């Protein structure tokens, strides 16, 4: 069976929308944990609401991914690089689940109420300092890992698009 040349439209749309959402969330998160600025609380409220949307988005994205035919990397890409690409992709899916879930659970463990657009959300954990410590650290370190992964991903994409020009970069752009 012939593999498609590009990712299906639904996956391309999800990829770029989530790229914008996740980058904004990361910038907001990394900034607000340091800032004493007056807009810090606004950013925090926005980060929590958008984080919940990112959780819904990754669920939808995983479903689309499992039901889609995706393009194969060209044979010119070495076995090592194929494996690296696989690991990066899996890493993204794992981290995009870990980030919102750890964020949600750390709020629970801190005893802070959560709501999405005024709708109260259930606490899945009791208030607990050790669990707060665990999920707060997971959230912080997973964010750094995600930043690293995004850098690797973008640099690799640019390498394919600008240097190798082998169609890999285009597969996430258009038909």
């Amino acid at each position, binding site marked *: 069976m012939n593999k498609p040349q590009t990712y299906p439209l639904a996956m391309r749309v999800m990829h770029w929308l989530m790229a914008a959402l996740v980058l904004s969330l990361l910038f907001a998160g990394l900034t607000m944990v340091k800032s004493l600025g007056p807009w810090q*609380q606004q950013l925090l409220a926005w980060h929590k609401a958008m984080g919940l949307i990112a959780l819904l988005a990754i669920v939808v994205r995983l479903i689309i991914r499992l039901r889609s035919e995706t393009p194969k990397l060209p044979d010119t890409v070495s076995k090592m690089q194929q494996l690296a690409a696989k690991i990066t992709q899996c890493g993204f899916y794992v981290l995009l689940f870990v980030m919102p879930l750890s964020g949600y659970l750390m709020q629970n463990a801190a*005893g802070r*109420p959560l709501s999405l657009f005024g709708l109260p959300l259930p606490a899945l954990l009791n*208030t607990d300092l050790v669990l707060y410590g665990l999920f707060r*650290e997971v959230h912080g370190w997973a964010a750094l890992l995600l*930043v690293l992964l995004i*850098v690797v991903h973008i640099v690799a994409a640019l390498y394919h698009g600008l240097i190798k020009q082998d169609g890999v970069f285009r597969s996430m752009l258009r038909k």
Partner: protein
Amino acid sequence: MRYVLFAAAAGAVVAAAVYAVTVSGRAAVSAQDFVNLQQGDSIQAGFRRAHAKGFCISGEFQASGELAAYSSAKALQPGSYPFIGRISIAGSNPTAPDLRAPVRSLALTILPDTVHQWRTAMNTPPVMAVATPEKFYQQLLAIQSNTVPQFFAEHPETAHFLKWRSHYQPTQSYATERYHSINAFYLVDRQGKQQAVRWAALPLTDDAGVISDEEAADALQQEFFSRLQHGPVRFDMQFTLATANDNPADATIPWPESNPQLSAGTIVIEQASLQEEGACNALNFDPLVLPAGFLPSKDPILRARAAAYAESHRRRAREVLMQHVAGGADE
């Protein structure tokens, strides 16, 4: 050419990532700088970086409903609502002597574990010495370098704080202190109308208390625990309304005594426990955890308190987690 483009683009991506992780949000003073300064050189693992010494309390807040016309918050409608709280002293040392602390505080989480929860951290001074986090940071630096008189002289806005301090007489009991919200907040009614307020917990007892051992580091804690054995400790939760002459964003200026004052209800402290064993230990008394019906004022100190408390919470939670992991490995 494409190699140049690739190098430039890849460089920009790496630079953006490094900027986000390190510099963004730091400005003049960051939450980390604050907490670094507060914790000093000897880190007390697992303890709060400020107000490290304290104990947990619990009881109920009996709301009078006098503020119900100003706010839709559940805690201000007539009724009894449980709270978890903490009484503490300023400083980063969890074994500091109670009687030497310059500041005492009473923190509450009313209606914990609900969306209606209202957290407040109140201190004995009614005002801040300075109005911004940056100046407050300078004040902490001055305390460490023993240049406080010079700092006060250079900052005329400290006058009200200094006046309070010159008259303040620490009491012989946590039950007889006055604890202030310091920063202002807005109450929001059902129509969305806002009223700026400050609040304070005022003692409701005539019993001055007896310190059994002046030398004991826990002198005030012992007094409070033995006082509770004879019955609950009560405070009146008094709200002061701002008038058009008051600036809610400036915590250095006291509001006139002639401003309208209303009693939101009575804080009834029924139980106390050591903080390691109490429910308050897991809580960060972030004054910006507010229910619907409350809003923060524009006071920049309020944001800085929330950000610094969050950093302190993260650090001690990480330490407690590590102790837990190490403890588990030993078994």
